[in-house]
């Protein structure tokens, strides 16, 4: 049976380094399988977060040969195995141990976004009517599995650590799903411009590239939101009206 070597980052926020593990591999294996095999046979206390192993829960995010990816959806036959495969934790979040990071910031950010507020029901039985074509774009955003790979790759968070001023691609997609929901009546445009820092995004599309659900984050979510912000706050005519009203 063939074998391959994996260079896995081990340690805590204070200290750590890469350790090499060589293990047997078989046809169809994904990176997470190799990590599990190493964990079961060579490093019982190796910390790795995972759940479904089918690309549906978004738990096993890591950087494989430098690329933010889901370990469960990265097949070994897509990687060059003549040299060690590096596996390291995401960089935008504080490290807990080995491959596991503290992603709790994301949960706090989401809580601060105004929740869904539907219009009154369309039908006396309390239900609504929406056409499929009107929900298609929202359904694209709702495919998000919250793996936070887009947050990991985004330079505003990764390099500039603007976590207090910028909510990141994941939550622009979340806001877009709410703002474009046919039933929603809330307005989140002002907070997008002010507290959520959408202006920091300079549409490099890195987030779109790493999205395992192939959500067109930049084109379909962020740019339309930026346009709404511009319409509302930077439209010269509206600006004039606002000034006159004051």
């Amino acid at each position, binding site marked *: 049976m063939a074998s391959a070597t994996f260079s896995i980052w081990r340690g805590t926020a204070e200290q750590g380094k890469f350790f090499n593990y060589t293990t047997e591999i078989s046809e169809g294996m994904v990176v997470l399988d190799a990590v599990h095999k190493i964990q079961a046979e060579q490093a019982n*206390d190796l910390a790795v977060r995972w759940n479904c192993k089918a690309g549906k829960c978004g738990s096993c995010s890591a950087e494989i040969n430098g690329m933010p990816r889901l370990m469960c959806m990265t097949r070994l036959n897509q990687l060059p195995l003549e040299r060690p495969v590096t596996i390291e934790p995401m960089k935008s979040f504080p490290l*807990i141990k080995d491959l596991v990071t503290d992603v709790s910031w994301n949960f706090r950010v989401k809580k601060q976004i105004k929740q869904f507020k539907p219009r009154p029901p369309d039908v006396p039985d309390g239900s609504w009517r929406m056409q499929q074509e009107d929900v298609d774009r929202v359904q694209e955003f709702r495919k998000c599995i919250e793996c936070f790979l887009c947050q990991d790759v985004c330079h505003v968070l990764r390099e500039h650590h603007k976590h207090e001023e910028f909510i990141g691609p994941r939550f622009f997609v979340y806001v877009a799903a709410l703002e474009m929901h046919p039933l929603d009546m809330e307005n989140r445009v002002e907070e997008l411009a002010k507290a959520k820092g959408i202006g920091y995004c300079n549409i490099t599309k890195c987030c779109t590239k790493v999205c395992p659900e192939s959500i067109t984050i930049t084109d379909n979510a962020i740019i339309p939101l930026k346009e709404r912000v511009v319409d509302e706050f930077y439209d010269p005519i509206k600006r004039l009206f606002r000034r006159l009203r004051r």
Partner: protein
Amino acid sequence: MPEYQKFEHDVLVIGAGGAGLRAAIEASAAGVTVGLVCKSLLGKAHTVMAEGGIAAALGTVNSADNWKVHFADTMRGGQYLNVWRMAEIHAKEAPTCVRELEAWGAVFDRTPEGDILQRNFGGHRYPRLAHVGDRTGLEMIRTLQDHGVHQGIDVHMECTILSLLKDADRVVGAFGYDRQRGRFLLFHARAVVLATGGVGRAYKITSNSWEYTGDGHALAYNAGADLMDMEFVQFHPTGMIWPPSVAGILVTEGVRGEGGVLRNSKGRRFMFDDIPEAYRHQTADNEEEGWKYCQGDKQARRPPELLTRDHVARCIVREIKEGRGGPHGGVFLDISWIKEKIPNAPDHIKKKLPSMYHQFKQLADVDITTTPMEVGPTMHYIMGGIRVHPETQMSTVPGLFAAGECGCGLHGANRLGGNSLSDLLVFGKRAGKFAAAFAKEHPAGSINTDQVDSIARRALEPFERGTRSTDTQGPYQIQHELQAKMQELVGIVRTEPEMLMALEEIGKFQKRAREVAVHGNREYNSGWHTALDLPNLLTVSEAITRSARERRESRGGHFREDYPNKDKAFGEFNVIVRRGPAAEMKVVRENIPPLPAELKQIIEEQQK
């Protein structure tokens, strides 16, 4: 002893999948304080993997559907071992629960009229599954999560509960640890809801994630609660079988609902060869009729691929055993053939089954729009669980409630696809409501600190053994061996001698688990976590095996080669396991109360 982090909640919900979240939302809406414990991160629970849809008689696609038909379908699917009152409540309340999700922001696929679209599924007479492509579970958990976080629920992520705490007969809290730092946590609560899901990790080939180690089942059992129907384990007929590393991953029944057909290596649609008598009049007798059904023709009868899961799984096993399987030991599930019937079939398939398309493309290099999938049965669900009161979801232990897969009663001997998501909503909501009511009516109990200290000590013992010696039992090895034995000896087809062997093996594993050793420290130590999950897996494995021995017949998800037929006498009772005075597992039979006349009449009418 070390200090514990202490938390006080009126209601503590253990488990944050569909049922746990729904219970937490309801309890919190009733005005009590709620703590929600998740074993993983919020929103990652196994519900996220549900694909097909939520069964509810909304009647948006076929107005002939109503709660009575749904009730009768559920009872027939469960081979009449269901707690009929739960089946009745479920059928009546599911539509409201689905509408509620929409009010909280869920975006279901739509009918041409703009209402919630419903799809066909096995065992359901009419199109009944509200869905979002094949990612309905994600939509459901995200909707509940996003709604729940604004309700003031205290969420404890990545925590595992080791034991429930009792004051005399009543449950008054729980004790566990946080997985990230390994610190012990003490929860004081007036009522506890278990919503921990299933037991899939007791088997080798399973669609379930690592979290499914039967925690709730074992916590309740150890606290003195009854478990019921544990012999009924559902093997989903279609799991991936190749490549080996993805074996077990689910292939949604939605594939068959959209017109996918099962063929053996000879190309034969073998499901036409064996249609059970009870379903014959509702099942198509030719391929054309089956296709028309999938296209929404209300006059057509359903194709045999949409018979109940237990039956389809056994037919697949038969084909494989008799040498008509594919190159990797499965049968073929083909959706690509619909290109003969509709234009733009590849786009249609990608739109209707996007996750399946990606799953096969990415993990198996198979394009399902052109090539059949090779599939085989995978352990998917346990019908059995904590015995609860049908109205309130309270277990046989006061103050302890259960909902979702770890509960029991709705599904009887076999669950219909789609009925689990609606189960989570209907009974999660009820568990939350009645747990809140219980919390309001009862003062806080007192916690026995000696008991807590001894649980903490036991939990740390594997480390002590790890430092004493390097040549000790590792947790993963025991878990893998147990999974292999359960698969082999208490799987789809069971016999008395094999189950006796299984009990002997489980006894040996229990002994080894008491000697398990781990290394490293308490911070995010997966080896330690696995060691602490082991006793739960062993408890549920024993419960499954003992219950399966007791039922000397074949029914629903329980098939015995030595008793291959259904036996009327065994249809009169449910099998219960409970902890005896000497900590031994006792198996008892409990008679099923007679069906009220009006429900009996509904079942008879629907059989026509």
